[in-house]
């Protein structure tokens, strides 16, 4: 059990799907040998195949206290970057336009903006994903070498590159498939929640760069933090696939889910644009209560009242969204308690 727990809340109503977070993370952490298929932060269109492909169907996580089976994702599931046939087109005189080569069959964000049909209306939204830094991490339990540990001081789950032997039990065990194997180093890697930045008082790179300002970062146990308020006070944010049993510390404010275009003015639960079943699939049955709560807050604001929750979700400035507390974490860590 960690003394503190850093957490992130992402408001899915504000995500533009611009991938700025993805690139911020990629440039900072995975622009190295063997990491071309890794996106510690990715943004996928939902409904969709996700990244790695069909990760929500592959397996892993807990059931009745037992780790669940899973195959290893292939490089194709991650979608390796492809090259273009410049040689043929530019120098060999072939008349066709430049095309990817060889013909790609998958890639991260492969089905961007495709979504699905609800009746005759298309619907989709973006789902940004990082490691959930779970309270009960399946990856940690699966490693026979104790290479993965949860930092006592702030709850961040890290993978010791010295201890790792590349067995990949952790890759299989993670139900979110947020651990990646680097074949060049022969070791697995994962999101480190930008702990070197947090230790300096800087917020995570994915959050800092987000133009939509949809990310909230802080200690879950800090009553003054936005993440604490959104998760525990307003109860407006939920973890992804709670039934996987890992107790994620990344939470999502679900899409408000407005009514279909033809039903303007109706309650969002009367004729929702996003099928409620799909949101329940992602966030569990509690999502219905959250949507009702969000709708009530919206109605209050539209009627001239003040919604503290919506004001917080707007999160105009960094001070509202981020409460990085390196002093608090350090004081606790250096306080003679076991690390």
């Amino acid at each position, binding site marked *: 059990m960690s003394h503190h727990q850093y957490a992130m809340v992402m408001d899915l109503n504000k995500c533009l799907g611009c991938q700025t977070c993805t690139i911020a993370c990629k440039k900072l952490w995975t*622009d*190295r*040998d*063997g*990491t*071309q*298929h890794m996106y510690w932060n990715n943004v996928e269109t939902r409904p969709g195949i996700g990244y790695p492909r069909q990760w929500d169907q592959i397996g892993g996580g807990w059931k009745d206290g*037992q*780790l*669940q*089976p899973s*195959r*290893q*994702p*292939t*490089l194709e*599931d*991650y979608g*390796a970057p492809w090259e273009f046939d410049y040689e043929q087109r530019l120098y060999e005189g072939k008349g066709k336009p430049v095309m990817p080569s060889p013909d790609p069959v998958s890639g991260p964000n492969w089905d961007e903006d495709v979504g699905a049909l609800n009746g005759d209306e298309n619907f989709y939204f973006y789902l940004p994903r990082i490691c959930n830094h779970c309270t009960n991490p399946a990856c940690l339990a*699966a490693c*026979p*070498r*104790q290479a993965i540990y949860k930092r006592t001081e702030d709850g961040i789950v890290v993978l010791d590159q010295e201890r790792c*032997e*590349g*067995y*990949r*039990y952790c*890759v299989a065990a993670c139900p979110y498939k947020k651990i*990646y*194997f*680097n*074949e*060049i*180093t*022969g070791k697995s890697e994962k999101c480190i929640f930008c702990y070197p930045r947090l230790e300096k008082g800087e917020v995570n790179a994915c959050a800092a760069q987000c133009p939509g300002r949809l990310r909230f970062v802080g200690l879950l146990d800090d009553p003054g933090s936005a993440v604490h308020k959104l998760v525990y006070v307003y109860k407006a944010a939920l973890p992804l696939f709670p039934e996987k049993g890992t107790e994620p510390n990344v939470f999502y404010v679900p899409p408000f889910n407005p009514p279909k275009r033809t039903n303007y003015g109706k309650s969002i639960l009367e004729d929702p644009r996003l099928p409620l079943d799909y949101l329940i699939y992602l966030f569990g049955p509690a999502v219905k209560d959250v949507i009702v709560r969000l709708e009530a807050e919206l109605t209050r604001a539209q009627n001239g009242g003040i919604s503290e929750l919506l004001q917080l979700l707007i999160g105009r400035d960094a001070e509202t969204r981020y409460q990085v507390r390196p002093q608090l974490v350090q004081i606790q860590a250096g306080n003679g308690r076991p690390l």
Partner: protein
Amino acid sequence: MRTPWKIIAALGCSFLAAVFVAHGTQAQQKAVKAAATDSVGMSLRVAAAPSRAEALLDPMAADWTSIPAQRVALNRTPRLYDTEAPSELEIPFVDVRLARTAGKLLVQMTWRDPTQDAPEIAKLPSAPAEGRPNKELTEATDRFSDSAAVMYPTRPVEKGQWPSLQMGDPANPVSIYFWNASRGAARMQAEGRGTTRRTGETFPARAVYRDQAWHVAMELADVPPGTPLAFAIWNGSQQDRDGRKYFTSWMKLE
């Protein structure tokens, strides 16, 4: 040569013992540890080879053919989790030849493996990735390479008390010579399950895959007579790694 069936029966007991260590109580573990003495297991003959160690490092060298192979039954470790796919005993035995020459112990291991899992993997460049436009690429995330290893107690065994077969124990650390078809040879140390660590040293080893079989020669430091040795084999296509492997019991070096 001994009757293989007797060996298999003897090793079967060790295999059950290993299962008990994995799942049993402390009392069971103590009982198993007490049983792990040199009263169990076969012994291994070592030839005095006139040839130089360098020549014997070729696993196909003619010098090896004059040394009789000792067929050792392999066991398969039980599944780590109920959720893992069942692991089949696809490789029932390994043929071992041993030769002592010029203060070295040369080991030749031969085993049948219809699938050669030895993908060539680019080495991590020594120059930092930052500022280097071209990076080495991960070509697959779900493949594992064939491997083999020889293990022996790091310290001389006292009163016939041999280390736990599961990577030694805190009182009896083990040394491991580990060869991987993709990543080469590395020396390791361990003092119990999950404690394996690389020493940073390598050792001379050569391997040939021919006629659906691996032939691996390794040069070990001189190991004194009476030392127990154990062998292990990993089959990449069975996703073998870690304790998911084939293993022999301890066998005393003559």
